[in-house]
């Protein structure tokens, strides 16, 4: 479904991604783990055109997308829960969700999807008239995930969805990711919480200072001694 082929991405003169290649197949949950500053978020942003790679190519369903603009890429059915959530602070929960469905015009289906989001996170329904900025961290994270789902993406990119959340909520979030995947959405998950991520993923990649250093089945990675030592803290 998504193929990344030898991309190099820069921030000014910082070379953040070195020849990164990876692929994601339809229906999978693929996770990308790695230390701080390894370049995980940069990889996600490179896919979405937020930090376009300088060289290399990215194809989505065979179509090259690495030179497209952000909004055009989103048009193709890719949606992201970005690092830091990026909730619109002065818009209400409802409006945040509506904007998630910005590219869609099927009013009834949008309505149904919104109900589904409220079903997943009942607390959001209670808060629907409240502005995004006043939500607590966890609520904001739920909103960010729902908002991404509202786009009915075919590929969902999640950047550290468990950051700063209480343990009880983290469990919930991982359950929801599995649910979403089960309903047919391909998921690319970036996580610090490697243990949990690998548990729900099909395949995984390991990234170190801008390079992909390992790639395998999630279960294999979970058992790998190096991975255990470096990322699972065992």
């Amino acid at each position, binding site marked *: 479904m998504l193929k990344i082929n030898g991309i190099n991405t820069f921030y000014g003169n910082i070379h953040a991604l070195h020849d990164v290649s990876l692929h994601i197949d339809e229906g999978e949950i693929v996770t990308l783990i790695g230390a701080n500053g390894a370049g995980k978020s940069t990889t996600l942003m490179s896919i*979405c055109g*937020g930090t376009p790679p300088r060289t290399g190519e990215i194809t989505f369903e065979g179509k090259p997308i690495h030179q497209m*603009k*952000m*909004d055009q890429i*989103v*048009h193709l059915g890719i*949606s*992201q829960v*970005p690092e830091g959530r*990026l909730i*619109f*602070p*002065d*818009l209400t929960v409802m*409006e945040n969700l*509506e*904007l*998630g469905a*910005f*590219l869609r015009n099927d009013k009834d289906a949008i309505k149904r999807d919104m109900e589904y989001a409220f079903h997943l996170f009942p607390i959001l329904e209670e808060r629907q008239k409240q502005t995004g*900025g*006043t939500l607590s961290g966890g609520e904001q994270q739920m909103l960010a995930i729902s*908002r991404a789902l509202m*786009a009915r993406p075919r590929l969902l990119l999640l950047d550290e969805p468990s950051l700063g959340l209480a343990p009880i909520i983290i469990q919930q979030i991982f359950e929801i990711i599995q649910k979403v995947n089960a309903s047919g959405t391909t998921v690319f998950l970036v996580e610090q919480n490697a243990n949990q991520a690998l548990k729900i993923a099909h395949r995984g990649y390991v990234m170190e200072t801008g390079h992909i250093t390992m790639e395998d089945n999630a279960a294999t990675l979970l058992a790998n001694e190096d991975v255990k030592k470096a990322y699972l803290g065992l």
Partner: protein
Amino acid sequence: MDWDFFIELGLGGLTRGSIYALIAIGYTMVYGIIELINFAHGEIYMLGAFTGLIVAGVMGIYGFPAVAILLMAIVIAVLYCAAYGYTMEKVAYKPLRGAARLSPLISAIGMSLFLQNYIILAQTSDFLPFPALIPDFEFMEPIAHIFGSTDLVIVVASASSMAALTLFIKFTKLGKAMRATAQNRKMAMLLGINADKIISTTFIIGSSLAALGGVLISTHSGQLNFMIGFIAGVKAFTAAVLGGIGSIPGAMLGGLFLGLAESYAAGYISSDYEDVFAFSLLVIFLIFRPSGILGKAPVEKV
């Protein structure tokens, strides 16, 4: 207390305030979306007035009726100013996205100087008379000595622009996309919103309003020159900030507040110090409400 005088000053302030508001709305919209104090906004207003004058001049020679001229002048001025606003954004601000906050501000100051001198060179530096295009309405006659037809048109135009835009921003999809872009451009793009287009649209709307203001206000004051935009711009900026910058109803309230304050200051104190009074009021007001009338204090979560 001399109530007649009080009311007369109030009505005068209302007109003046609506004038400020009409320009301030565009100011505040542009600010809202890219946090740029667009010092060249006043010059767009001035270009609108000049375009209107040119249309009026040409049509006047061919003897069209005043109302037709007015409508045509507004339409063409709006069209052109939208084009100017659009072009200005593309040339002077877009290449600066992502640069430090103050760089576009300087670019805007340069743009403002450029447009003033453009008019001096291509047209004139003199004051030109602007024809009175708004007819004297029959029904306004009884109070015409304190509030005329032109005043009425300006107040109505200003209030309805404010209302229309507020609704537009609040309820339409495009309006929501605008607010989203204003709050977080990157996230808006991640949702498939074409931020460049939204920003252009904002400039187009803001500039159109400035053009409308340019024509109406010039026919009210009966004259124009290349500097009118500068003075109007400073006052509109003040009004926008007073109202809470970024808020459209705020711009209206800010404009009215400023207009009324100036009017009463001139009436009861002295017009020598009307601007001193207006600015002092601004300072004092902001001390007690640092985010303006309708502006929200930025919630910064620590």
